[in-house]
């Protein structure tokens, strides 16, 4: 279950942004009818039907989706990127990032999941066990990693249903949600949350002063695949129930 997706492209700030951003925002108005302008001259635009928010800033553009179906398609990201690149005249990016929060339901209670994750994600040593308190009640597995030019912030943790609203998906305060339908949407969303789940917070990014704009689409495609590979691979490992002879 996808709780949140965020795509962000950063670029070098230029003064020309301020004259270009309003015409660009107007061109997005059909897709993102609700809008607000912040003190920093960022333009925030929202599509309540898709729970999607677009933020145009002098140094970045961000597209995020949160709530029931939090998966912006690669096509929608590519379309936004294409229009923003031509609208703002962005020559190259300095950072491209794609982050997803995924909750994978499991058939066990929270204590059991914590024990499984403690056993399988951390070093098992009688010496360490003797040194540490006997029972682990909660944990967080957090690493930063890289593979080629692809970098990662990866967080894996057990979560209970009551931890999702407010902490992970803040529908009550979310700008993605139509204020008039907020209560109805909250109830619908909360019904679908799993009792206990493994949370993945995976942030994939490229960071380089000279990322060519043509490579943005490639980044989106590879980062989606990387997130899927990591989450499914870890799930297979954590929940494996067979002995290989």
């Amino acid at each position, binding site marked *: 279950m996808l709780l949140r997706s*965020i795509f*962000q492209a950063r670029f070098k700030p230029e003064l020309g942004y301020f004259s270009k951003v309003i015409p660009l925002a107007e061109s997005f108005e059909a897709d993102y009818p609700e809008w607000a302008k912040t003190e920093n001259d960022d333009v925030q635009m929202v599509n309540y039907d898709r729970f999607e928010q677009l933020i145009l800033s002098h140094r970045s553009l*961000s597209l*995020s989706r949160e709530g029931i179906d939090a998966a912006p398609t690669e096509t929608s990201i590519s379309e936004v990127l294409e229009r923003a690149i031509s609208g703002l005249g962005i020559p190259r990016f300095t950072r491209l*990032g794609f*982050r997803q*929060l995924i909750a994978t339901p*499991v*058939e*066990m*209670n929270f*204590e*059991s*999941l914590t*024990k*499984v994750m403690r*056993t*399988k994600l951390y070093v*098992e*040593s*009688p*010496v360490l*066990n*003797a*040194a540490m308190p006997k029972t682990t009640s*909660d*944990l*967080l597995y957090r690493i*930063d990693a890289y593979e080629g030019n692809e970098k990662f*912030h990866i*967080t894996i*943790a*057990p*979560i209970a249903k009551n*931890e999702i609203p407010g*902490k*992970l998906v803040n529908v009550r305060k979310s700008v993605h949600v139509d204020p008039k339908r907020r209560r109805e949407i909250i109830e619908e969303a909360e019904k679908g949350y799993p009792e206990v789940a493994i*949370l993945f*917070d995976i*942030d994939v*990014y490229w960071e380089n002063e000279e990322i060519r704009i043509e490579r943005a689409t490639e980044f989106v495609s590879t980062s989606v695949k990387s997130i899927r590979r990591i989450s499914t691979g870890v799930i297979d490992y*954590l*929940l*494996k*129930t*067979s*002995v*290989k*002879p």
Partner: protein
Amino acid sequence: MSSSATETFSTDLNVDSYEPRNWKWIGVDYHVTGATEIEREEPRRAYARPNLSKAPEESEVKQSGLTSAREATEPVVAEELKPNPVRSSTLSPHAAKILRHHYVQKIVDVLALLAAKARTPGASRYACDLIEVLDLYIEAAGGDPFVEVALTFYPWLTSQNHWATWSADEFMAIRKVFADFGNRTVNPNMVEKAILQLEDAAGESALGFEISPKEDATY
């Protein structure tokens, strides 16, 4: 996930500003005693472990869930294989299954390495690994009925040192028992069969006490 952990989730994509905590050495002269004082012969656990050096009384069999070839014919043993309240954990059945497969896989893997080094000095290293895995399994999954198999196997390695005398074939036969039964649905009969097959695979020397006709007559 704890509340402090969840605080790291913000709508801001820029999470690369993460900084490790500023840990300070508090100057305590810390003497790690536990690291050197773990006794292999009697590992830490909150429940009884079979002592195969003497024939058990019937009451002991009921309390400990002890199983061996001798007791296999007695129905009370199968009854005792059900998890008792003292040993039951809060583990969900699915979690118990995951942990069982995790540890049995490790046991199977180490047994393959032991088979390759059977009756050589190199076997000692893998014997240590195997004892450690068994220790961890018994500690972590005490409520799992399949732990009985590990408990039966454990003293053969620790107090009887059979790891030094078993041949590669014997290691592989033991490995096959763990691999075969590790994948099956756990029930008292299955555990019973696994233990019997384990004893067959390990050979008579592993039983830990001699069965002389004279003693047998008085038992």
